[in-house]
């Protein structure tokens, strides 16, 4: 049976999913902080005469840059493109230390003296915490030997070496995949990240691992997006991930999650109990989602309750607006019956008289 015929037989609740997608978006004040603070710091670094950078000087990376952030945006990442003028062989530790030193005057220079509480050297970045905004920045110094369109090299303090990384390439690749998927790849990543947050209190897989999974399953065509509602698409994604991980699960090992650009395993630190817990949550949610999709229109309450188990009832809301939109959409393609009080029904009731509405078309665009 063709997919479009199948899709008409499932209860996909597009208006409830539209509300869910809205409910997991970052709030306006967090989006404003994410738009403002990194720009202030990037401009500060670009203006530092004794800290040399190469044009375009810095670039946003991470989930904020890719529009895959959900809930409260707590942090933003960016790379600063260093120009080791006299020292092409600069040690990774020195690159991190130089950036750390360059940032010392930043709080006062951008008018946030006393508000920046933490300035910390991390393994691959300098971490800055803006206490007044409860906002974190991770700044990664990066070498750009072959231009902005090729891989960058970032320092790893622990391994004491430069590591190939392509965050900007991934930004572009995801943007292309999103366009090719009918703008569904990014929303699907957000739904998957939100699902993880709701379902897993401990030992959560990292957001980037989930992004890499969605990217891989869409890019390889294991999950098709054309003509599918988010309800079907999300269920397909969970099934696809479960099926591809099943062999590892059966063999008591942890699967690889390849980096979308460079292919290395981004989930090296995933431990077996955490992976098994993830698979268990996947199976639970697949069961709920499949039952919800199989419900009839007059079982909408049961379907909503099942989706609330998957996404949380705080986010998958049973709002009167969503129900009204859903009913109007169903009414537009159904035979209708109208009661004496003017109630419009899609099923003929047995307990009161109704008039069966004759076929017609509302006429005219203008009032």
């Amino acid at each position, binding site marked *: 049976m063709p997919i479009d015929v199948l899709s008409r037989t499932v209860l996909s609740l597009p208006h409830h999913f539209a509300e869910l997608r809205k409910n997991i978006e970052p709030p306006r004040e967090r989006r404003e902080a994410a738009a403002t603070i990194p720009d202030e710091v990037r401009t500060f670094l670009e203006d530092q005469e004794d800290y040399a950078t190469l044009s375009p000087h810095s670039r946003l990376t991470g989930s904020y840059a890719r529009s895959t952030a959900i809930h409260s945006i707590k942090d933003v990442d960016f790379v600063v493109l260093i120009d080791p003028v006299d020292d092409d062989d600069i040690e990774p530790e020195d690159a991190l230390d130089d950036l750390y030193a360059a940032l010392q005057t930043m709080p006062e220079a951008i008018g946030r003296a006393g508000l920046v509480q933490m300035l910390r050297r991390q393994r691959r970045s300098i971490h800055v915490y803006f206490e007044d905004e409860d906002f974190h920045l991770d700044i990664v110094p990066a070498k750009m030997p072959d231009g902005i369109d090729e891989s960058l090299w970032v320092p790893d303090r622990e391994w004491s070496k430069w590591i190939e990384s392509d965050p900007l390439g991934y930004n572009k690749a995801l943007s292309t995949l999103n366009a090719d998927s009918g703008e569904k790849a990014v929303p699907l990543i957000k739904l998957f990240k939100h699902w993880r947050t709701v379902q897993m209190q401990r030992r959560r897989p990292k957001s980037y691992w989930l992004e890499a999974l969605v990217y891989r399953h869409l890019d390889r065509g294991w999950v098709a997006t054309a003509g599918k509602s988010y309800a079907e698409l999300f269920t397909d994604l969970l099934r696809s991930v479960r099926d591809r991980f099943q062999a590892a699960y059966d063999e008591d090992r942890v699967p690889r999650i390849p980096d979308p650009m460079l292919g290395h395993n981004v989930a090296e630190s995933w431990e077996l109990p955490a992976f098994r817990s993830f698979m268990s949550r996947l199976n639970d949610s697949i069961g709920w989602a499949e039952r919800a999709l199989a419900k009839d229109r007059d079982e909408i309450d049961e379907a909503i309750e099942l989706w609330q188990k998957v996404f949380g009832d705080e986010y998958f809301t049973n709002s*009167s*607006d969503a129900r*009204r939109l859903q009913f109007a959409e169903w009414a537009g393609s159904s035979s209708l019956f109208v009661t*004496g009080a003017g109630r419009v029904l899609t099923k003929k009731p047995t307990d009161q008289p109704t*008039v069966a509405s004759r076929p017609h078309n509302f006429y005219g665009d203008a009032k």
Partner: protein
Amino acid sequence: MKSLGLQVAEMAKRFPDLRFERSMMSWYGNLQPDDDATLYRIKITYCPPNPPKVWVRRPSLHPEVKHRYSDGTLCLYDPREGEWDHSMLVSQTIVPWTAEWLLYYEAWLIDPEKRWFGPEAPHGRRKLSRR
């Protein structure tokens, strides 16, 4: 053509809340398209040989809603396709179509994409959809 007496009697049987005022050749009453919807006060005027006209008297409709004529009456059917004629009962056509119009209007009001979910036939073109 159905007699006015039959139209009035059938309306009273099907939609008892719609009262006919002979001096105005009009029915007045309320329709509520679903349990949580607004209660709409409507007026249906029927002066043959003119077709029936429907106004929503209260509450005021959104000025930008489509499927209304310039006099504010509702566009309920496609006259080019003969979807309504005087052989039909107002109670079995115009009133249920008005209830439907109100249902789709309430959805249109809250829809971020401002969609009209009912079947519609734009001016100047053939019908796009039909149940």
